[in-house]
């Protein structure tokens, strides 16, 4: 399988705290990788690094045919070229409140990819239809539920036709019913072999969708391998983490 994203020896410190500690990890094309780990372990920092929203202190990142060295200044043109390769989905969806639902999805394609309005609108409606939200196209985001907004934000990311989707706890801010709506969309994307890196605390979903699991703790990668290997691991830290998760939430997924 093609190697799509590759991070090597990435370090990021906030004051004394090492958010990413010599992280080397790569993600393959067409594959769904689930990132798990305790809160504050550096999962968001890792995803934001891939999307260049956070600039680490050192290390390298390559996506497809592009590469950057974090120790050197990165030009905005370089950042933009790399960001176009990935699509980001945020925990709180971060839709643009001043644009309609369709406008949100068209924004990237028209402004960044210079698509025509008609083309972008047609593609937006297609995406909305695939998540059962076509009827919301002309509404504004804050008239919609969290589950609806998150599905729309997935459409917004997909409209850029990214090589890989990066999802940072896409269902953590949702109640179980809405979580299910969003997870269905993600399961469908996984089936279509859309490359995805998903940070989640939902272990039922992780089991169902992950072809690979990366376990992060204290800014370090502690496990990187198969889903079965992870859930049956004898490693003390992993067992402790999984026990904590199953206690704190029912890991619900209808």
């Amino acid at each position, binding site marked *: 399988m093609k190697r799509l994203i590759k991070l090597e020896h990435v370090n990021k410190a906030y004051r004394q705290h090492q958010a990413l500690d010599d992280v080397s990890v790569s993600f393959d094309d067409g594959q769904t990788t689930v990132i798990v780990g305790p809160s504050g372990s550096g999962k968001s920092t890792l995803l934001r690094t891939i999307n260049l929203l956070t600039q680490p202190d050192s290390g390298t990142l390559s996506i497809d045919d592009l590469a950057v060295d974090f120790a050197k200044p990165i030009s905005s043109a370089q950042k933009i070229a790399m960001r176009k390769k990935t*699509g980001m989905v945020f925990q709180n969806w971060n839709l643009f*409140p*001043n644009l309609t639902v369709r406008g949100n999805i068209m924004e990237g394609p028209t402004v960044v990819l210079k698509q025509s309005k008609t083309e972008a609108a047609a593609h937006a409606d297609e995406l909305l239809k695939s998540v059962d939200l076509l009827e919301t196209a002309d509404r504004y985001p804050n008239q919609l539920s969290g589950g609806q907004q998150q599905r729309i934000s997935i459409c917004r990311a997909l409209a850029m036709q990214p090589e890989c989707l990066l999802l940072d706890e896409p269902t953590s801010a949702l109640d179980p019913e809405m979580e299910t709506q969003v997870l269905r969309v993600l399961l469908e994307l996984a089936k279509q072999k859309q490359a995805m890196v998903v940070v989640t605390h939902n272990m039922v979903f992780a089991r169902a969708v992950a072809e690979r699991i990366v376990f992060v703790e204290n800014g370090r990668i502690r496990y990187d391998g198969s889903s079965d290997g992870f859930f049956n691991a004898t490693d003390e830290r992993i067992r402790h983490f999984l026990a904590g998760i199953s206690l704190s939430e029912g890991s619900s997924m209808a």
Partner: protein
Amino acid sequence: MWEIIKTATPQIIAAGIRYTIPLTLLSFAGGIFLGVITALIKLVVPSGNPVKKGLIRILQGIAYFYVWLFRSTPLLVQLFIIFFGLPNLGIKLPAFTAAVITFSLNTGAYSSETIRAALLSVPSDQWDAAYSLGMTETSVLWRIIFPQAVRIALPPLSNEFIGLVKDTSLASSITIVEMFTVAQQIEAKNYEPLVMYMLVAALYAVLCSVLSLLQGWLERRTSRYAQEGDEAVD
């Protein structure tokens, strides 16, 4: 008394249309322009090569000095310096131009702080989301951040606008025949200060009220998207 009001009102209104309103609109437009530029200069984080960094720092120094200067001196004094003072330096401006420049600079200094606060109050998540799509800084600013900031800045900016309407009466002191000047001139002939100044006050009030209605309409327009939805589930 009614006779006085009947003859004076049209004259004052004419002065309003001729001077007060154009002076207000031009000065406000100029002020917002200066305010936006000043706010943006203050918000830029100096980066890039040393020359560019230095240039940004100098511009920021100028911006801070400008805002400080115009907020800590009386408007009337500013008006006098620009109209009566600058000719000593060989800069002789027509009264109307001097007034527009002074009121613009003054409005710009105040509105820059309002605009800066509004831009900062848009959550950084919005920057992240727009950047993640591959948008340039300029696109994010104008297409995503500004529209949201306008909504936040509109009520305080409307206050500044109404304040400006009333402040234009100071232009009477530099020979501009605006509403208040006309009232003074008529009063000098009929010796009815109470009636005349009450009348001009009433006309300013009418003008401000009309503008307030306009503000309400603008606010509804720019915040359409922020109204509570009827189907919001959570």
